[in-house]
């Protein structure tokens, strides 16, 4: 238990050890644990949403600027991939790149309008914007397929066009995506930008007074956080071959990305990882396994699980007492680049 504690809550060095161990473990899963296609798809989706949630964590977790609409970027990634491939026959990898660029552009535009205002405006406008995107994609049928959605052409096994016969390939694509997302957020956290974002999260006025260019820092954070989400959206459509307005921009996806991080621990490096491992399988299992129950039952259970976890600890699982060294220690921010810190209370640490 002590090792888990120190590893999950401890120093940077332990993340450097634990990260590769977890990566190797997850990479080996198909060889000894994952026996059915269903489990494989659950784990793949877990990794995809983990990546999106890791992206969310950059601006909303580290930066404290809560978004309930990172599905905007997820959906833009998915739809750009789908539209460019089906309408224009553009290569899937190029389409993926275009999706990322478009997501970053939208993130910057959104940020210019909302990030000068207090944080709550971002939460309101992202949630509104993602539902507007859902309406728009539903409306312009000729271009987006409307409410019915878009289906990618079946290509069989064509790695040059991001199509694999074997679903196992997508598992590893999703794993690489999630791992890359994790490494990027880790690097952000260790960087000057990460420190500035955390300063903004702690106290925007104090950060500004200390010379942090608050608006620019927030804008950069939002732009960076859009990238993993857009990539996750692209991989999602390549994997499932199908996208519709609700599964790209709908309220369920919008809240899912944020709730994963909140349940795991918003602003903690490992938060989205823990949250995704817990919530996505829960949702997938409830969706398929309990189909005998009336519609809505799965989300009732899901909501209750989220409620109970956050009722116990509003800061998420990573802040729960059994994960902390000394219970009840007051939250104290740790210096970002503490050289090899000794075991100490980590209530305010982001790791």
């Amino acid at each position, binding site marked *: 238990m002590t090792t888990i504690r120190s590893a999950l809550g401890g120093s940077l060095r332990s993340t450097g050890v634990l990260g590769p161990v977890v990566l190797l473990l997850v990479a080996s899963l198909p060889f000894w644990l994952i026996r059915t296609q269903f489990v494989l798809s659950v784990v793949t989706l877990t990794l995809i949403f983990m990546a999106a949630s890791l992206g969310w964590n950059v601006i909303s977790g580290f930066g*404290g600027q*809560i978004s*309930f609409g990172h599905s905007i970027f997820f959906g833009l990634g998915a739809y750009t991939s789908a539209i460019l491939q089906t309408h224009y026959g553009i290569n899937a990898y190029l389409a993926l790149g275009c999706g990322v660029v478009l997501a970053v552009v939208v993130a910057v535009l959104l940020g210019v*309008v*909302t990030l000068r*205002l*207090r944080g*709550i*405006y971002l*939460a*309101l*406008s992202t*949630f*509104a*914007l993602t*539902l*507007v995107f859902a*309406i*728009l994609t*539903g*409306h312009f049928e000729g271009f987006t397929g409307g409410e019915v959605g878009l289906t990618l052409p079946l290509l069989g096994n064509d790695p040059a066009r991001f199509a694999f016969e074997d679903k196992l390939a997508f598992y590893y694509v999703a794993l690489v995506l999630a791992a890359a997302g994790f490494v990027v957020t880790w690097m952000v956290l260790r960087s000057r930008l990460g420190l500035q974002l955390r300063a903004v*999260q*702690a106290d925007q006025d104090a950060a500004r007074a200390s010379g942090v260019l608050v608006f620019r820092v927030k804008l950069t954070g939002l732009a960076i956080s859009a990238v993993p989400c857009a990539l996750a959206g692209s991989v999602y459509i390549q994997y499932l071959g199908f996208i519709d307005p609700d599964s790209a921009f709908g*309220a369920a996806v919008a*809240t899912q990305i*944020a*709730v994963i991080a*909140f349940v795991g621990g*918003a602003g903690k490096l490992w938060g989205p990882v823990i949250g995704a491992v817990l919530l996505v399988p829960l949702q997938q299992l409830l969706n398929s396994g309990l189909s005998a129950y*009336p*519609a*809505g*039952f799965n*989300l*009732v259970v*899901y*909501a*209750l699980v*989220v*409620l109970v976890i*956050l*009722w116990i*600890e*509003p*800061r998420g699982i990573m802040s729960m007492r059994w994960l902390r060294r000394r219970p*009840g*220690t*007051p*939250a104290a921010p740790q210096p970002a680049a503490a050289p090899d810190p000794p075991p100490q209370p980590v*209530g305010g640490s982001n790791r």
Partner: protein
Amino acid sequence: MTSFLQTLASGILVGGLYGLFSSGLTLIFGITRVINFAHGDFVTLGMFGAVMLFTSLGLSPLLGILPVAVMSFLLGAIVYKVVVRRTLAIRGISAVDAQHGQLVLTLAVSILVSNLLLMAFGPSPRAVQGVLPDVYDVFGVYIAQARLVSFVIALAVFLVLYHFLQRTLYGKAIRATVDDRDMAAMVGIDPNKVYAVSFSVGIMLTGVAGCVLATYYPVTPTTGAGFLIIAFVTVVMGGLGNVVGAFVAGLLVGVIQQLTAIYVAVDLQDVGLFLAFVLVLVLRPQGILAGRGAHA
């Protein structure tokens, strides 16, 4: 021209109800700094309350307002005590973390409520039929009795709320807390009580609005998401925390929505809202009515 006036009239009439439940959201935000993500679903809950009272007891939604208001007030109190209050009771939690926790908790309540309704009633729309069926012809503009009566009720309830906030001791305590929490606490206002009362009153307003809305608007368990967007746009237009602003902005939102629906496309009505929302954010983020010293 008649069609324009017609659109304007129906926009204003439905806007009164938007204004009513949005003033609940802005009241809750002004006091507790919580954006209640379950707000739209409480409107739905009020609508289902009206439908159930009508179908099982034959009670007209106009009489149903009273029991629905009481129930939603109590429900608001319970949600506040059990869910929202919880985040403040944790040792060593920062104000920001507590606030974010409240956001997600209300979000979970929203998912819970809408899906409990889905389990109980299924996805098909329900409506109260045959109440207030008349249609008035005012110089060529048709005005449905249900819409008119709903609007009048919304306006009346809002005026009662306004009177409560301006004249009663509780109302003054609430306004004092909006203006300066610490100072209000210092002169002996119990913030916990004020928080609980304003949260419950905010939820009660959604119940009342839902109840009268049910006289002409069919309800499904997922209607709430649409109301939530409307409420978000309305409270930002009115200026966050500004109750009067929210009501006036509600009328405006109703009109914008109807104009977009008639002159652009019905399914794009909320896109028109969002454009107005962005314009407000860019030009007047303090709200359309705000002069100096807006509640921020």
